[in-house]
């Protein structure tokens, strides 16, 4: 007996014809429901994540008394822009900004130059002991820094570098951090080696290959390294806390704490200052988001 006739005889066909569209409809309905639920959840969590930022901004623009209102006013009335100049003149903010900028700028230069040269050597040049050394780099990647914190402090004390910006800059010229070496090396080995060979045949030196082939081809990953370094140095707190004591050499991170040392906390001033400190990082993130995400993806998934 043919299948069709069985189906007809048992009336299965009718039920199937009936069931099919409803199943299809319920599927679509299900999809819509889950999509709505997704949006609702994302909206809820998104609001939770955004609220602290809005709260900071709102507080930074409030007049003193409005800070202590219940229920809180989210939109300040009047908007007190003068909180910003007031907060920034309360402590020598411009000086702190300059110090932080100097540290961040030179530390990034050190990291980029140093890590890329080392990574180039690991990725492209053949020398005895290379693989052992790279293995050491990978091992140091896992080492938490607390063990070396005190001896490093002693080294810089012997060098009379305490209370200068040098301990926060100079180490980055010595390799630029194991993580960055690793990241750059992983990227460099994906650049076709034929390019090097062609350049060699044309008489290009090793440093020439580094400068004319490897570096120009690695702009995205170098950008990612620079941005991460910027973020780290700008936000760094523990090391300046240990090494810098004079107020004239404070970084922004240390300077913000001066607001805490008063009898009462000037919340609107503190929030204004915090906003200004966060702003450069947020701006860099906004304009370089692509490199940020790429860098994270590269380290998290391929690393």
């Amino acid at each position, binding site marked *: 007996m043919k299948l069709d006739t069985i189906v007809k005889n048992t009336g299965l066909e009718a039920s199937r014809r009936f069931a099919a569209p409803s199943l299809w409809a319920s599927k679509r309905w299900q999809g819509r429901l889950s999509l709505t639920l*997704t949006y609702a959840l994302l909206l809820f969590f998104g609001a939770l*994540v955004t609220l602290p930022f809005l709260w*900071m901004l709102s507080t930074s623009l409030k007049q003193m008394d409005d800070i202590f209102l219940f229920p809180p006013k989210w939109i300040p009335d009047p908007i007190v822009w003068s909180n910003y100049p007031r907060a920034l003149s309360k402590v020598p903010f411009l000086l702190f900004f300059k110090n932080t900028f100097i540290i961040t700028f030179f530390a990034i230069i050190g990291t980029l130059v140093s890590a890329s040269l080392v990574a180039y050597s690991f990725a492209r040049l053949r*020398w005895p002991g290379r693989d052992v050394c790279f293995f050491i780099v990978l091992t140091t990647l896992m080492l938490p820094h607390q063990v070396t*914190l005190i*001896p490093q402090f*002693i080294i810089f004390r012997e060098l009379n570098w305490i209370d200068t910006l040098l301990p926060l800059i100079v180490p980055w010229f010595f390799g630029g951090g194991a993580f960055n070496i690793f990241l750059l090396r992983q990227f460099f080995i994906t650049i076709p080696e034929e390019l090097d060979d062609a350049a060699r045949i044309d008489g290009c030196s*090793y440093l020439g290959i580094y400068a004319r082939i490897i570096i120009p081809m690695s702009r995205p990953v170098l950008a990612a390294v620079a941005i991460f370094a910027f973020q780290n140095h700008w936000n760094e707190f*523990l090391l300046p806390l240990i090494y810098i004591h004079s107020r004239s050499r404070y970084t922004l991170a240390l300077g913000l704490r001066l607001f805490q040392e008063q009898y009462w906390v000037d919340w609107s001033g503190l929030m204004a200052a915090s906003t200004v400190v966060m702003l450069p990082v947020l701006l860099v993130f906004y304009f370089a988001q692509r490199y940020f995400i790429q860098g994270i993806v590269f380290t998290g998934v391929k690393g």
Partner: protein
Amino acid sequence: MAVRASIASRLNLPAGRLARREALVGVLLVMPWFVGFLVFLLGPMLVSVYLSFTDWDLLTPAKFVGLKNYRKMIFEDPLIKQALKVTTIYAFSAVPLRVVGGLLLAVLLNQNIKLKSFIRTVFYLPSVVSGVAVAMLWLWIFNSDFGLLNLILNLFGISGPAWLSDTRYVLAAFVIMSLWGVGGSMVIYLAGLQGVPTDLYEAAEVDGANSLTRFWYITLPMISPVIFFNLVMSIIAALQIFNQAYIMTQGGPQNASMFMMLYLYFNAFEYFKMGYASALAWLIFFYILALTLLVFRSSSHWVFYTGSVRGK
């Protein structure tokens, strides 16, 4: 090799000399790292071992005291037990929440939705701005009378606790704060999710698997390496929590947030007990190492690498 020989002949050099020149350049380029490794890492680690067997206040010469610091650490100092306890409680609450929360957000975001990259940015923003400014912001949010958190709780008729000055709530406050940065792990998960081949899902759908089973039997195993990566990174970060605690509570109230790194900092740079602090550093180091190794050991049971299956 053929290329190398041709380069050598082109440059009028014997191949051996070319290789030697390459090795010379290679070693020279690595030198800065090597010097840094010796001066800033290996040397300091050895010095740290030595220091942990001494009493040293930076002013008078270091005095060798044998195992005294370690004995004190294990048998006499109640604060170190407190530090281990609160750090462990913090890590064991913050890490799972971060790992699961990040995954949940990533799964939500990985659907066919609009404004995906904008939403991703919103969630990622908090992890961009770590540091003192963030700690200051949260100090204000946790303010018991006028902080955002208690104002919101007030709307629901709950009178919130004094988060940062109540021994029962201070750790919860730090956990909440760390959850704010969950977008950092979310971004990594998202990348992992996008690497899961769609034909697996299609095949499962044909076989009648619903979305929950698809998640359980396909998504989870496929991104388990990413979960593993996030887990290890979160553990290491959580056990080293310092900035927030130093700025917001200084270890208080009654040492309820005296995290290990904070205790190390106080011993080294406020009490100038360099020897004892070095011993503490090694304790922290081995504690982190032990937990990380435990996760690594467990990984063979739950982390699934596609490469190994293709081989079978």
